[in-house]
């Protein structure tokens, strides 16, 4: 502890916490840029990272919606699915609006074009859902979005002729690169770039006056409204914005960047619960915390697929092996659940919150003011003293 205090003091007197934080972020970015160039890394490792980036986008955008704006929605994966399914359907079947005289044929639209249409469609559904949810709060909002999400999943599952049912729907590949290794590298950078862009966009909103109003709404909608905040507008805005982000990410990821097809299984409540769990573990009210929580959790879940324990003292297993191999299957999720329960019980702001707070210097700002809570009597006594 004393050593940490000395380290803390040296940082405060030297480079400063914020600068150190930025330096650390720069190093992390450099690591991710270097990673695919390391010849010893397999395509499988890169695929795990690509999946980690994708879930980091989902989790951080959910953190904006639920952690910052207080809209505890279970519909996030459904919006991701809308983006992906619409992109796939448009690219395969085209679309025609007879009344407007607009007709898009599969031949006339590119993969990127279909992704954009999917994104816009996710935003439109977000607009409708946001509008329907205006008067719903807390548990009612969660129940509504669970129902919406399940309805969408069942629709995708049963409309076999259009969506491919449980076999899923293939989207038009976004990249067409013959060399598998090079393709994986490009896909890696594409998904990493998308994560950076999404995080920048999310931070821009969170740090703007809109972010301030969203947080006010989360704390008390009536009070925010009485302070001049147009709660309806911002509620809809945050739904549309996050729906478009996950719609876009979903459409890109399933355009053969991270996965070659979207399946209804991806829209199950379990998947949504994982997104929430990643955000809770990383820090629901911190966008970078939620993103890091998602990436690290995805990586650990993948790493824990098979646990190998080398037996000591020359012991062997029944089949003569000196190592015990455990295919964890769904047990890894149980361990993950234990971590989440621990987080909710002891560190409600997420496991990464103390680190983020330390680097941001927020704890110093609080120490500089009167951090002790005055009772009304003490406060009144101080006022009297000031008067004298």
């Amino acid at each position, binding site marked *: 502890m004393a050593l940490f205090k000395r380290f803390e003091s040296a940082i405060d007197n030297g480079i400063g916490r914020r600068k150190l934080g930025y330096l650390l972020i720069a190093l992390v970015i450099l690591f991710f840029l270097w990673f695919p160039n390391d010849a010893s890394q397999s395509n499988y490792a890169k695929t795990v990272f690509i999946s980690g980036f994708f879930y980091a986008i989902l989790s951080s955008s959910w953190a904006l919606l639920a952690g910052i704006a207080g809209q505890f929605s279970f519909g996030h994966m459904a919006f991701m699915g809308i983006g992906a399914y619409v992109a796939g359907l448009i690219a395969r079947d085209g679309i025609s609006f007879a009344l407007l005289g607009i007709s898009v044929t599969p031949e006339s639209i590119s993969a990127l074009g279909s992704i954009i249409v999917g994104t816009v469609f996710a935003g439109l559904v977000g607009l409708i859902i946001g509008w329907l949810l205006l008067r719903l709060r807390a548990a009612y909002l969660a129940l509504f979005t669970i129902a919406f999400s399940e309805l969408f999943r069942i629709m995708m599952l049963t409309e076999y002729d259009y969506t491919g049912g449980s076999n899923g729907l293939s989207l038009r590949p976004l990249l067409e690169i013959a060399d598998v290794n090079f393709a994986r590298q490009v896909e890696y950078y594409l998904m990493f770039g998308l994560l950076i862009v999404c995080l920048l966009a999310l931070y821009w909103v969170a740090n703007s006056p809109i972010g301030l109003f969203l*947080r006010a709404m989360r704390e008390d909608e009536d009070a925010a*409204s*009485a302070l001049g*905040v147009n709660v309806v507008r911002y509620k809809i805005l945050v739904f549309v914005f996050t729906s478009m982000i996950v719609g876009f990410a979903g459409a890109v990821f399933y355009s053969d960047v991270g996965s070659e097809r979207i399946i209804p299984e991806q829209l199950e409540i379990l998947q949504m619960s994982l997104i929430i769990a990643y955000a809770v573990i990383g820090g629901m009210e911190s966008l970078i915390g939620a993103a890091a929580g998602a990436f690290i959790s995805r990586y650990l879940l993948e790493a824990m697929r098979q646990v190998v324990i080398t037996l000591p003292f020359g012991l062997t297993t029944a089949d003569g092996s000196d190592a015990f191999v455990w295919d964890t299957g769904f047990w890894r999720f149980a361990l993950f659940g234990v971590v989440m329960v621990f987080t909710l019980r002891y560190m409600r702001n997420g496991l990464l919150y103390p680190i983020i707070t330390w680097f941001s210097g927020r704890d110093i700002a609080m120490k500089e003011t009167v951090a002790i809570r005055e009772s009304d009597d003490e406060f009144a006594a101080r006022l009297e003293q000031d008067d004298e």
Partner: protein
Amino acid sequence: MSEINLALNKVSKRFGGNQAVDHVSFAVTQPELIGMIGPNGAGKTTLTNLMSGMLKPSSGTIYLNGRRIDGHPAYDVTRAGLGRTFQITRALGRMTVMENMMVPGLAHNPSARRSELEARAHEILSLLTINHLTNELSRALSGGQRKLLELGRLLMLDPSVIILDEPFAGVHPRLQDTITNYIYRVHENGKAIIFISHNMGAVFELSQRLIVLHNGALIADGEPQVVRNDPAVIDAYLGHDEDD
């Protein structure tokens, strides 16, 4: 001095079979200190909610500075120039004191520079003696400090009419002086203030005009000394001296 013209015309609110507010009419046309009193359940808070846009009237009209505001959302009424506090303080708990001040500042004046709004917030917080708590989360404040923060937020809105719902409730007597000073200073700046209170000492000390509600209806509206002797008010709320 900003324009002041709040006019209620036969405003009513019914919740099922309960007539919470019954054809209330009054107008505020100058920077007055108006006390609003009445027994519990008289309709004071409901009337406040109607004026501030938290509730829609069942019938009647409300105009503020020439604009009809009944049925308009609360944020719109606030921007039109009517600010309010709540009976139970509603500080935005997981936001700092400064952020609490910036919410109305930016909502009211989106094009203003943050530095200017922060300077204004510091000025107001100093007036309210809580400037040293700027970076503190508002949930860490004591009850009295939260009351002051709520009053401070109102000044960021610069409304022409202010409604204070029970500003003295649960507040230390010495802290009441700070709130009383606040009310006088805000009034001197040309604002009309309507305050609801059961603290009769404060009501008669501060009010230039008194409005009395009973069973949702307005039973008296006038100078405090006149209203005090009104038989209807005595029967409904103030009561008779034991000697009488």
